[in-house]
């Protein structure tokens, strides 16, 4: 399915976070990158319906405001950045909850079949009875992803799914998303910080800056020295990997031309 945002604007009270953002998300993996406070999370929250932006969000050309909540929450699955929880639930129950839209008092055969398939596919079957509060960060994130996938969504929106994870887990999750996106024909959108991970796994990259789309397209055309200098204020060398995907090596802070704020990456944040 195609998820489009047209002229999306959003403000938290008087603080405008998104300005006339246009995005067109097609089946495949899209990465949304940009500095802190660029509006990545806000954009995802507008797209999944948690926030009501000005402008319109369309699902295959149909305005989401005309899509019943139950249907929308089945089609679009959103996973916030903070998936930590103190809920005392077993892994299998937690993933079952992902099928909330059609869950009866007793889960159906179909519910159990989907959950079982996911736990197998994500290599979590051995943890089925464990409490989710006892899992490691990487395992916990995998369970959260399994839950997000349990409703068999057409569109999957993930807010920094690899934040705070080590390199192996980052690659594990990104490869998994790549594979599932292809096998299920999903439209997967991941907000992320790591430019190289984005370049490696995404078909399309959207760059957000100050609540607006700076540029978008395949990683090879978007990941350029000038984009990184103007969006992140960092001088970087952009080389090509053997497979043609760009490889970014950050070198130093760039001298800023404007004086609006302090360095976004400076010690004061």
């Amino acid at each position, binding site marked *: 399915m195609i998820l489009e945002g047209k002229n999306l604007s959003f403000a938290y009270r008087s603080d405008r976070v998104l300005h006339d953002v246009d995005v067109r998300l097609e089946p495949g993996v899209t990465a949304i990158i940009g500095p802190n406070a660029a509006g990545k999370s806000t954009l995802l929250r507008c797209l999944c319906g948690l926030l009501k932006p000005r402008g319109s969000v369309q699902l295959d050309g149909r305005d989401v405001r005309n899509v019943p909540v139950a249907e929308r929450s089945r089609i679009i699955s959103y996973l916030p950045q903070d998936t930590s929880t*103190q809920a005392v639930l077993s892994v299998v*129950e937690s993933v079952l909850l992902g099928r909330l839209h059609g869950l009866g008092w007793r889960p159906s055969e179909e519910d159990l079949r989907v959950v079982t398939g996911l736990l*197998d596919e994500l290599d979590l079957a051995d943890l089925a009875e464990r409490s989710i509060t006892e899992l490691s960060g990487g395992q916990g994130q995998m369970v959260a992803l399994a839950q997000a996938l349990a409703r068999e969504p057409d569109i999957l929106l993930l807010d920094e799914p690899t934040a705070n994870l080590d390199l192996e887990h980052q690659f594990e999750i990104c490869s998994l998303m790549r594979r599932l996106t292809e096998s299920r024909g999903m439209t997967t959108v991941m907000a992320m910080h790591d430019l190289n991970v984005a370049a490696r796994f995404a078909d399309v990259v959207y760059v957000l800056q100050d609540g607006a789309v700076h540029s978008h397209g395949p990683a090879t055309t978007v990941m350029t020295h000038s984009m990184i200098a103007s969006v992140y204020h960092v001088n970087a060398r952009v080389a090509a990997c053997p497979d043609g995907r760009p490889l970014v090596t950050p070198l130093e802070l760039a001298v800023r031309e404007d004086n609006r704020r302090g360095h976004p990456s400076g010690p004061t944040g």
Partner: protein
Amino acid sequence: MKGPAAYSEPVVAAYGRLVRWRTAVMGLVGCLVATGVIVDIATGPAGLTVSEILAAIVRVGSVPSQHDVIVWTFRMPTALMAVVVGAALGVAGAEMQTILNNPLASPYTLGVSASASFGAALAVVLGAGAIPLVETLALPASAFAMAMLCSLAIYALARIKGASRETIILGGVALLFLFNAGVGLLKYVASEEQLAAITFWIFGSLQGATWTKLAVVAGTLAVTGPLLAVHAWKLTALRLGDDRARSLGVNVRRLRLTTLVLVSLLSAVAVCFVGTIGFIGFVGPHLARIMVGEDQRFLMPLSGLTGALLLSIASIASKSIFPGAVFPIGIATAFMGVPFFAAMVLLRRRSYW
């Protein structure tokens, strides 16, 4: 769109084991509650034997009318009142903790018990105690009205756009202090007899239980229980955080408000007849959570059962500590519950909140 064809039996078996274990725990606690009721009925100053009690309950053979009166008029309503009030407080506490995402939430900490005490004290000071017939009606009515007023205030606070769960809890705690101050003021202006009546009410007591009061509490539980159970999965999802619950299609705001109304009603009805038995609504759900986790299909009923069991045990203890006299049950609950709770927390194998 479909998952892989591979089908892992262990996962289905694991889920089956979880469900069977939880059902077994509920069955066990249920049996303990039933045992508690029998022992509760058998305990008392009249010194009836268990066989005499059982004979009087099932009404077989020639039961002396005195036994019949003791069992059916006094002990049975009291014992069953302990069960329904405990269950109501347990369920109310569990859902308050869930919707407010806070382990400290309970009918007591949110001021519902304190406001009921204030209502009862107000009725006493205004002179309802002087007329015996009015007392039985006016005290619970006034207590209920104040408890609902307190709940309404919390509800209004929750309705304010942007009010967070923390705001609701802080508001509840503020109301607890406010109503406690109100009770203090009423005690200050009360006469000596009134003061004694207020103090006695606040201690909590099941002794005034009648079949009518029992029916009111049981009826409220029978109505609100299923209404809450319908939302079992959604309430479970709430504990994953508002964003994830909303992404799953839960109307978080409406669910929170509906649940708040139901549990307010439940706790107000429970405390208005028996006084301040605050501890049950706090500890019952925690014990249930330690045993079965937070799948609300099990947590909700088991919180009711643990609440019922705790109050039943407290009721037995209140009659056994000083032979021939009934110790206030509100005091007994906390004295018994705290060590029990501490043991469960210290001996736990996994985190429970």
